Structures are given as C-alpha cells and as structure tokens.
C-alpha cells in the first residue's frame, strides 16, 4: 500500500515539478493582483508625497501618532475581516467597545484589580459576540439585522450601566491600566536606546502587529481558515462536504467581538477614562478599512494584511488632509470616495488586477 503510493509519487515526479513552477509564478501574480497590494502601493506613494510636501508629516512623533490612531481600528478590522469572509457583517463592534469600556471602568471604579476588570470587560464583549453568533449561525437570521440589534442593545446597556457618567476614578490599579494603554517601545533616550528618527511605537500598534501576524498565519496554515473561505464562497457546498458551518460562523462573530473588546481596553487605558460613547460610528470606519483592504462583502475573500493596510490608509488620508490644512469637514467626502473606488475595483475585477480591468476597458473601447 505504502510502496505503491511511493511509486505513484515517483511516476508523477515530472508533473509535480511543473506544478511547483506554476505555483511560484502564481504566488507573485496573486500578490501583484490583490487589491491590498495596490492600496499598499497607494499608501506608500501618499506617505512619500506628504513627507515631501510637509516635513512634519514624516517625523517620528507624527508616525507614533498615526500608528497609534489606526491600530485600534485595524485590530477591529481583523475581526471584521473574519466575519466578512463568511459573507456576514458585524455592525455592533462600535457599541461593543462602549459596553466593554463601561463594564471595565465600573469594576475599576469599585477598586477591583485591573485584571479582574479587564476579564469582566472581555467577557461582556464576548457575550455580545456569542449573542450575534448564535442568532446568525444557529437561528439563521441575517447578520445585518442581528448585529444592528446588538449595536443598539450594547450602546443602551453602556449608557444605563454608566449612569450616563464618565468614569475616571479608577482606584489603586489606575496607573497599571494607564501604563497598558500608554506604553511605548522602543523609547528615546534618556529612558531608552532608540535613535531620535525612530518612532516610539505604541502598545496599540504592537498589539495590532501581533494579532495581524497570528491571524495571517491562521489564514495561510489552518483548515479552519479554509472552511471560513469555503463558507463565504459557497455555504451550501461547505455544509454538504461536512464542514461545521454553524460553529465556524459562530466563532467568527465571537472573534470580531474579541477584537472590539481588545481595542476598547487599549483606548480605555490610553485615555485613563471610560465613556459610554466610546466607539460611536466606529463600525463604519472599521468596515470601510476592511473593504478598502480588499475583503469582499459578498464573502469568500479577505486578508489580515489587507485589514491593516486599509485601516492605515484611511488614517493617513485623514492625517494628510489635516496637515495639508484642508478643512476637516472634507474628510468624510474623501473617505467615502475611497470606499466607493475600492469596492468598485474589487467588484469589477473580482480578484484580478486593476491593470487588467483598464486593459480590458481599452480593448473594448477599440472594438
């Protein structure tokens, strides 16, 4: 049995090397044709242009700021990407942030230790995710409706629990909480070793990097991710082939809520206070970042890299407009335009390159 398998392998040896060749071309090809790649290129161009236009843009301080600003959104985009790959959407992430912040803030106010408060906050967030996941995956309700409901429920709970007050008297562990949210690495002298030109990256940024690397590895190496993509591209097929569709969809919503909870705790630590309005409107910014990064709202496609790049892109645009002295009221228009452009490209090309689309268009014109 084993022997025949080995023989078969040897017989098809030539064929395999052909296949390997094909892969090497297509791996590069795939990177070059992905939306995330082009957004990254655009981001790079924008950064170079802005640094040339406005030298303060490229300073270590501003880079520290930008990376800290988009990190919480990027963290949530990672969760959103997982949900969007299954073909769903999670509108509740912003409200979940608010609820997590208030639950954590309350426990801190009651002088519980920071880890008890953080654990309680995380649990509250995961409970929201489990609620979403249960009704979407097991009851079969549309994710838009369920998470829209949760958007309302979680925000309302946050307001009620907080007594509509801002919480900031965090008891004995307040310094630790703030240290978590405000930590930076590497530090400039005298405390650290980093040269002046190097940005002091925030804890938010590093959490994002670690989560993105983990999720990226999961996407590439695990059967779980294969099932996730299968559910998004053909749920019926996935079910027929024996994939535990409901369980995986459930996990996707719990993961999204987890990322929202983590982002909330980081922001709570950074500001040293908890307000029930935290994260208001974030769901749209997170979805925007995710979609600009190339995730397909129809399901079946999305990457960790894209989630981070999309969020970074939005923040850099915002920051660039600010630096260029353009009225901040224009922000919405620019961001909106980029969302539409990104999705338009993503739709028309369905995974192939912008270049191909343009080429097709030119050919079509000539005919």
């Amino acid at each position: 049995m084993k022997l025949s398998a080995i023989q078969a392998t040897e017989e098809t040896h030539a064929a395999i090397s052909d296949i390997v060749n094909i892969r090497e071309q297509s791996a590069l090809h795939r990177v070059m044709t992905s939306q995330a790649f082009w957004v990254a290129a655009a981001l790079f161009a924008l950064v170079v242009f802005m640094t040339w236009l406005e030298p303060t843009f490229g300073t270590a301080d501003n880079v520290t700021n930008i990376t800290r600003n988009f990190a919480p959104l990027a963290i949530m985009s990672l969760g959103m990407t997982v949900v969007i790959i299954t073909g769903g959407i999670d509108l509740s992430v912003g409200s979940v942030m608010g609820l997590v912040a208030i639950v954590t803030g309350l426990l801190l106010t009651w002088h519980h230790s920071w880890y008890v408060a953080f654990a309680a906050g995380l649990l509250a967030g995961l409970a929201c995710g489990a609620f979403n996941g249960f009704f979407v995956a097991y009851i079969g309700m549309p994710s838009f409706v369920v998470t829209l409901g949760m958007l309302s429920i979680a925000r309302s709970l946050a307001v009620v629990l907080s007594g509509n007050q801002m919480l900031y008297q965090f008891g004995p562990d307040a310094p630790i909480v703030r240290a978590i949210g405000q930590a930076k690495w590497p530090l400039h002298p005298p405390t650290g070793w980093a040269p002046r030109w190097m940005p002091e990256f925030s804890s938010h940024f590093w959490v994002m990097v670690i989560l993105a690397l983990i999720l990226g590895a999961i996407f590439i190496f695990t059967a779980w991710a294969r099932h996730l993509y299968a559910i998004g591209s053909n749920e019926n097929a996935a079910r027929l082939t024996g994939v535990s569709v409901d369980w995986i969809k459930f996990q996707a919503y719990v993961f999204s809520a987890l990322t929202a909870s983590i982002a909330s705790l980081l922001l709570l630590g950074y500001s040293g206070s908890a307000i029930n309005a935290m994260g208001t409107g974030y769901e749209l910014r997170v979805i925007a970042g995710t979609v600009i990064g190339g995730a397909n709202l129809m399901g079946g496609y999305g990457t960790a890299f894209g989630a981070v790049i999309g969020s970074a892109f939005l923040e850099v645009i915002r920051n660039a407009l600010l630096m260029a002295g353009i009225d901040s009221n224009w922000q919405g228009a620019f961001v909106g335009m980029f969302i539409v452009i990104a999705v338009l490209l993503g739709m028309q090309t369905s995974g192939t390159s912008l270049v191909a689309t343009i080429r097709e268009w030119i050919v079509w014109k000539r005919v």
Partner: protein
Amino acid sequence: MALLDVRSISKSFGAIRALHDVSFSVDAGEVVGLMGDNGAGKSTMVKLIAGNFPPSEGAIVVDGKACHFHRPIEARAEGIEVVYQELALADNLTAAENVFLGREIKKGFWPLRILDKQSMIRRAGELFDELKSETRPRDLVKKMSGGQRQAVAIARARLSNAKLVLMDEPTAAISVRQVAEVLELIRRLKSSGVSVMLISHRMPDVFTVCDRIVVLRRGSKVADKETAKTSPEQITGLITGAIREA
C-alpha cells in the same frame, strides 16, 4: 447482492407526493441512469439516498445494511458521494483545497497543527491524473471549465473511496467537449469498480454510459430496463407518458 437497494420508497412534502413506492437496485460497478420529466422526483431520490432528508416510507439498504440517513455525512460514511454541477464546490478555493475540503491533511502537533499543502496538492494531482483530466491542483475553481469542475467533484468522491457516486445533471450546463470529458470520467469510475447513478435529461449521454435506465413519472417508477434492450424512442415515450409502462 446489490450495492444499493431502494425498497418501496415514498416521500411527501406536506400534500405533495414527490415519490410513491419506488424500488430499484444498483449493483457494484454498474452505471444506472435515472430519467424523468421535470418534477418527476429524480432530485428527491438523490437527496434521499445522499442523506439530505429521510424517506416518509420505505428503506434504503446499502451493502445489505438498512440505513436511516438524516445528514449527508452519514451517507458519506457508507461510501455514498454526490456530485452536483455547481452546488458543492467553493469557487474561491483551489482545486486541491476543494478536493480535501472538510478532510484536510494536517501535520505537526497541537496547537500548531497546520495544513500539509504539499501532500494535498500531490494527492489531488494523482487523482486528476487517474481521471486523465487536465485539472491543475493549484488553480482556483472559479476559473475552471464545467468539465474541470466535474473532475474536481469526482476527485472528491474518489478520495473517499466511494462505492456509489450520485450525479445530478452533471452535463446540464456545459459544452459538448466538456460533456464528453464528464462521460469519460464516469467510464473511469465504472472501470475502477465504483457504481454511478446518473441523472440526466440528455438521452445520448444516458445511452452512451449507462448499463440500465430507470424511468420515473410523477413520482412512480414506470420502467427499469437494460440499455441494450431499449431505445431512446421508448424511453422518451415512457418519460412523457405516451407509453404507459414497460
């Protein structure tokens, strides 16, 4: 002994009687065609055998064992696989990933159990070679022809060493050349001892590959004939009702 024995199966959906007292059998290595007009109950029969839902009455016997399937996985455990034209493939995954969907080969130890992509690609390549199909394991299914998609679906069935492959209109929406490809795949399954139940509206396809033809009309069996002993005209008559029974 027959590989599959369908005994007096009836199936009702509320007031609709989709199948009424249907019995037939499929031997090992036999290709049986299941024909009938739209709504005759062919797909319902496939779904019963594949375990999508249980029959209202009657029994499904596989290898002498009475089975009560409630989920497709249970039927698969008995060696029954279904091949649909579009239904069962994930477009955004590669051919190899589709072949192994839900039963991936993994390596390493928990919690670092990761996909063994090389092994899966190699095995999928072997299966495509066996089927003499020009399907490349790393290609996305989205970009494949109907014939290649069929090859992927059939490779899935081969991977699990299925004893019986049910094919619901595999040639419905593909080109002439691809139809020939699919019929060739069916012959290969047969020659490796796998039984096939082919559902098709295309008379030539059924007459090329099937050993026997079962005809359903309005949920009842009206004919069960060896291909050699019947003709397209007779089968057409049976399907439309011009000929009552044979």
